């Protein structure tokens, strides 16, 4: 009997599960040092990279580009977004929803254990507030992406969402989401430095610029002007003369860059089960020209042609605009200009426009490992030229409009584009507003802004074929999520 009891106690130990036996670091072991906090903050940035399809969607859903591909049934999710035949079952949208919320959850986990870690200890260090300011910026960025795409969305900031909380989820009104975004950005502005020694970390100016953009989405023009003007007057940024050079590897994080999503080919990734979730920019492969071959110094590599700029976009540029050639890259023109490369390629099999996204074309030597998934091209999501255009619009539309200032900002952008003052805009009032909106398209095309801009400015129904007002301003809440949580669907879907 004694033997049996002893063996039983010993046996209980035999089936005990101690994660340390498996060399695992548990949540109780972590956030015990400054390094832990800083390392964890790095991963709050990661989902920003995974959001690269939000950039693609921003143009494909608009009049800027079409989802090409091998055939009509290739990249179906993007085709449906392109053609406004989309339903609540869309793999791209589902992925973006999950990724943006992973960002929110990662930020929340850090804010939950800011004062005390899981084990109940307090860890203080120099720069903790500035580090958390980055976290607040990122959470604002995630919620801004979510509300731009879906309108009213679930809002929670206290912790990581637990699976058992699913049934309690509800969609918060857009205003509440924007209020939280403003709150997070203001907290970020208060503690962020104006420069960071590591390129790619967010700065005070990035937070101000983003807040300015958020205010425009809320039609708070006066607030927008007051937060954007200091970014301009700081003199921290300048416009690069050669527009195309901004988009070269050498142009990354340059003087015009306010916030840029960082990608690298230095950490090769090969998970086809989550194509966007590595350190490479998957969208670059989507832009590439099919079957492209060339000899000598031909710099470009082949891709999938699933994001093709439209002739409509190309036609929007006036003669002499240096932005056209790179934004709507014409492969036939390029081939003719470079006979020495002996270029051959496959005409895009579906929705061919003859044009490619030259800003983010795959280039030889800029990827590694699984080549499709590891292009190094950063996404230039917030450049100084946009800050100028945002500020121009804010000043033009504020309660006390300042069109002179607005023109000045706008014409800085145009002067860079044309290299002269002959193309300056002199209009005022509503005409100036339209000029600023038009300029936004030309300046920011293929940077993922157009569709959201058209919706924001109320132009979508006029400009987009198939767009139904009152429905397509927002995307459908993923059906998979509705099934599980009982969230309500957006109207019309």
């Amino acid at each position, binding site marked *: 009997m004694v033997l049996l009891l002893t063996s039983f106690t010993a046996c209980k130990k035999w089936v005990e599960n101690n994660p340390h036996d498996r060399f695992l670091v548990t949540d109780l072991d972590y956030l015990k040092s400054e390094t832990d906090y800083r390392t964890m903050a790095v991963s709050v940035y990661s989902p920003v990279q995974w959001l690269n399809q939000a950039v693609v969607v921003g143009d494909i859903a608009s009049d800027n580009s079409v989802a090409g591909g091998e055939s009509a*049934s290739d990249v179906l999710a993007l085709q449906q977004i392109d053609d406004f035949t989309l339903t609540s079952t869309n793999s791209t949208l589902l992925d973006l929803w*999950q990724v943006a919320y992973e960002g929110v959850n990662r930020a929340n986990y850090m804010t939950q254990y800011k004062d005390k870690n899981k084990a109940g200890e307090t860890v203080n260090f120099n720069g903790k507030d500035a580090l958390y300011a980055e976290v607040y910026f990122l959470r604002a960025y995630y919620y801004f992406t979510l509300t731009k795409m879906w309108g009213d969305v679930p809002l929670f900031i206290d912790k990581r969402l637990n699976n058992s909380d699913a049934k309690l989820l509800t969609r918060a009104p857009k205003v509440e989401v924007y209020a939280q975004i403003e709150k997070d950005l203001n907290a970020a502005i208060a503690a962020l430095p104006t420069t960071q020694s590591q390129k790619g970390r967010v700065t005070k100016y990035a937070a101000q610029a983003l807040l300015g953009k958020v205010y425009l989405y809320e039609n708070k023009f006066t607030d927008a002007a007051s937060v954007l003007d200091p970014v301009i007057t700081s003199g921290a940024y300048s416009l690069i003369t050669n527009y195309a050079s901004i988009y070269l590897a050498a142009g990354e994080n340059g003087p015009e860059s306010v916030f840029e999503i960082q990608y690298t080919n230095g950490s090769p990734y090969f998970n086809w089960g989550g194509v966007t979730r590595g350190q490479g920019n998957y969208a670059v492969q989507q832009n590439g020209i099919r079957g492209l071959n060339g000899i000598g110094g031909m710099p470009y590599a082949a891709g999938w042609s699933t994001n093709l700029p439209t002739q409509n976009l190309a036609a929007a540029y006036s003669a002499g605009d240096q932005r056209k050639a790179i934004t709507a890259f014409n492969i036939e023109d390029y081939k003719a200009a470079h006979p020495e490369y002996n270029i051959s390629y496959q005409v895009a099999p579906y929705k061919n426009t003859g044009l490619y996204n030259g800003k983010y074309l795959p280039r030889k030597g800029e990827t590694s490992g699984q080549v499709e998934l590891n292009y190094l091209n950063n996404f230039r999501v917030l450049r100084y030229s946009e800050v100028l255009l945002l500020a121009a619009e804010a000043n033009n539309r504020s309660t006390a409009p300042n069109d002179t200032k607005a023109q000045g900002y706008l014409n800085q952008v145009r002067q860079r584009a044309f290299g002269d003052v002959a193309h300056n805009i002199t209009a005022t009032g509503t005409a100036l507003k339209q000029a600023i909106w038009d300029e936004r398209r030309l300046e920011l095309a293929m940077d993922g802004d157009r569709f959201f801009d058209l919706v924001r400015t109320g132009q979508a129904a006029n400009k987009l074929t198939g767009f139904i007002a009152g429905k397509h301003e927002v995307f459908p809440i993923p059906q998979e999520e509705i099934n599980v949580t009982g969230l309500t669907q957006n109207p019309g879907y």
Partner: protein
Amino acid sequence: MGIALLFCFVSQGYAQTLRLTGKVTQKVDGQALPGASVTVKGTTVGVVTDVNGNYALNIPQSGGTIVVSFVGMVSVERTVTQAGTENFTLEDNANNALNEVVVIGYGTQKVTKVSGAISTIKSTDIQRQNPVRAEEAIQGRAAGVTVIQGGTPGSSPTVAIRGIPSYAGSAPLVVIDGVQQSLADLNSVNPIDIESISVLKDASATAIYGVKGGNGIIVVTTKTGRKNMKPEFTVNSSYGVQEIARYIGVLNATEYGAIVNEGSVASGGNVIFPDLTTLGVGSNWQKEVFKTAPLQQHTIGVRGGSETVNYFLSGGYTSQGGIVGGIDKSRFDRGNFTANIDFQLSQKLKLTLNTTGVILNSKGIQENSFNSVIGSALNFDPTVPVLNTDPNSVGKYGYSNLILSEVYNPLTKLDNTYNKSLGSKLYGKFEAQYDILKNLKLTSRFGYTKYDANSKGFTPLVFYGPLNVDNSMNADRSTVIDKHNSVNHDKVSNFNYTWETFANYNFKVAEDHTFETVVGFSLAKESGNAAGVNRQDVPFNSWEFADYSAATGTNTATNPSATGGYYYQYFKRNMSFFGRLNYDYKEKYLASFTARRDGSTAFGADNKFANFFSGSVGWVASKESFFNVPAINFLKIRGSYGTVGNDNTPTQATTIITGGPDYGPTANSNGYNFSNVFYPGSTLGTTENKLLGWESQKQANVGFDLTLFNGKLTVTADYYEKRVGGLLFQPATVYTGGTTPVPAANIGSTKNNGVDISIGYNETIGNGFKLGNTFNITTVKSLVTATNTDGTAKIFGGSYFNGQSQQVTVFEKGQAPGYFYGYKTNGLFQNAAEIAAAPTQTGAQPGDIRFVDVNGDKVINAADRTNIGNPFPTVILGWTLSMSYKNFDFNAFTYASIGNDIYRAYERNGNYTNKFRGVLARWTGEGTTNDARNPRYSFTDANSNIRASDRYVEDGSFVKIKNIQLGYTFPRLMQGKVFKSIRIYAQVRNAATFTKYSGYDPEISGGVLDTGVDRGAYPQPRTYSMGLDIKL
């Protein structure tokens, strides 16, 4: 000899007797039979044969009837009236196996006393099949067991005992000589070394294995020596040739050219092949990749025993080449070395040492996808010549200038496939048995399996064609920028052991009440680790130099993947207490009760232990005095009920992971780069469910065993029902929760029910013509009765790619596990008016498929996807026919699987990939066809005719003649003194398949969510072989 002498001495006392001497031998091998009883009928006069099978007996002067009997053999009677020599030959009591003993968990039981559901396969049945893997011998021979074989040499088939109770899989526990192993370990057992296989099917038989018993148990018993047995040598040798049995109909070059032209023009493009007359039939890629391949199996064994030591020694070699690419590219080699030895150290103490060393080597090719070797053969451009005709490019084989990625010349693919895997396994047991009392035996057993594998693969630089974008080598043999060849080495090392101690106590109360009991405990551990390295830049782009030490790749800022490595380890521990009580009253009323308590590291802190109970009762009606049906020799009615479990879930923890890319199911990656330098990051990697516990399975079984007409006809039938509660399952993903994986939970339930029937019919006709038939009938109905409370938790699988990534199988509430999920079709739209009248279907044009509006909302969308098929058969039939006449024997095995559907997923559907012959019957105008499988052909497919739909579902029911063997045993005269028996045979495996399925082979094995999805699965070969069985 001593006994014989004694009787000689005693017999001196009788004067008026006849003296008989002689030898008793076994029919099967002509060997002496010691211990057989030789008696005079109706008297108490009798002797037992000595170690050489000899006897001497005095019988009354008047003569008498001599009865010779031995346990498990048919008694022989012969009337003797004069003195002299009388030899007897006894035959195995195969027809009336009522004295047989079956191996069950922690013991054995007389077959007539079993009240659970058990199927048994004997060594003779296994040998007639001559299988490469033991599972082949079970297929169709054990009622209640579904076996779906694959064609890859050495590959593991899908095995399900009585349906698919769990998402975690259906693989049963395998117990080899008492030692717990996995289904995968059956690949290392030489089937010829197997004495018997018992399949334990119901809870009363499996509950003794508790949490491991949920999927049933395959109990394998290997051969051993017998006490005082003369050495018996056996040699079994066979050689065969394997070939592909059928081809899939694809277009020839002219047909291909025409359809490509049509597709291009229909989508507004140019004519691609202006002159079809130059194309001819082109290349037949299937004929190029399928080759004949050898299959050889050789085993030498010896067994025997003395007073204290019994032994079985065996050495075997099996080599199976693959028919895809031939033995150079695809093969499985196995060497087995077995020593089963037991030592009777004293009257009470016996030690057993079973040791088997196995060498497992293999080579493989890319399989099971549209761009695998088979997939490429099916989809590649037939206008391309087999050999390269372009003097300006490297490469032995032709290339396409139309297909520029993904699908390549299959021969180029095959040519550039380099890998090998060298594995070694050591398994066995060390066991001590001590007889404390006459009927109380204590056994302590340490069983182990040690596996090490070392594999290597080489990815060379390849030139696929001048315009191909996937080239890593240019036409002039130079390397494409950023491309490298690479070599990878992987090592796996596992060690699993079980230490069990148990006591068996058998006793009787008041003579007629028999009790057989066992109690014990067991500790088990599974552990393992793996490590690997990879490196780029192998010298000379050559397999010869493909080794980490020869490769030169070094990581740089611009190429961080030039070399790398990984390591991981795992373990899991279980502990259990168990006991069983078997009772019978005069072998007429039977009862059994089993209990087991299990603990596992895999389970939540708050739910560590679980108890499993089962009970069964039986009634041997034929033993009742009132039972008087002359035709019925034996009738037993039995029933059982009990619980078993499943702990097949990973050990949990709430962890923080630090690093970069994540390759888990949710790609929960970390890190970011600042100033172009990558910084690792950390996040919550996994969470735990503290309540996670056992999947508990309640099983009920009723059945009967019937023997009629003196053993000529036997029937065993069972009805079973299994209900799983607390199914280990992944809760529905809440996407708002992000990408941290959600831990498994005990949600959901499944139900399986069906009937197992075995019928045996044996007859001797005329002078020596023997006929044997065994029929096995298995029906299975599996249903997922619940997942989470609202049924939203479901798991998708069956991924394939046909231009889009598709998933076609689902495990969800209200459906069969792994059923096919997609759109239903309803013919083709013949004209615009039909499209206008139909529910809104975006992109549809005349000639496109009309999909069914299942939910009736007037729109065809994802919500209309529904059940379009079930990959698992509802009825399985196995028929073994054996005949023998004089020295000839014939054995045929036919297997039928009914009700299983197949999803055809090997068609790539690219604009320039080859098409299948169905396209010739495509829609070409109103009224041409209304067959949804053959819509109009166009490069652009706005209707998405290629979406997952019943267009690709085919009835996979089949009848296969799996095995035909004709043998001839040489007459003893010719065999002389050296040989005890010589038998030669000819065999054909997979002789014929009757099916409507259009692919290679309707048996598509895989996990629950991959079974029946044919992505170009490796077909089973047809094999012609010759063999030789010798006994010395």
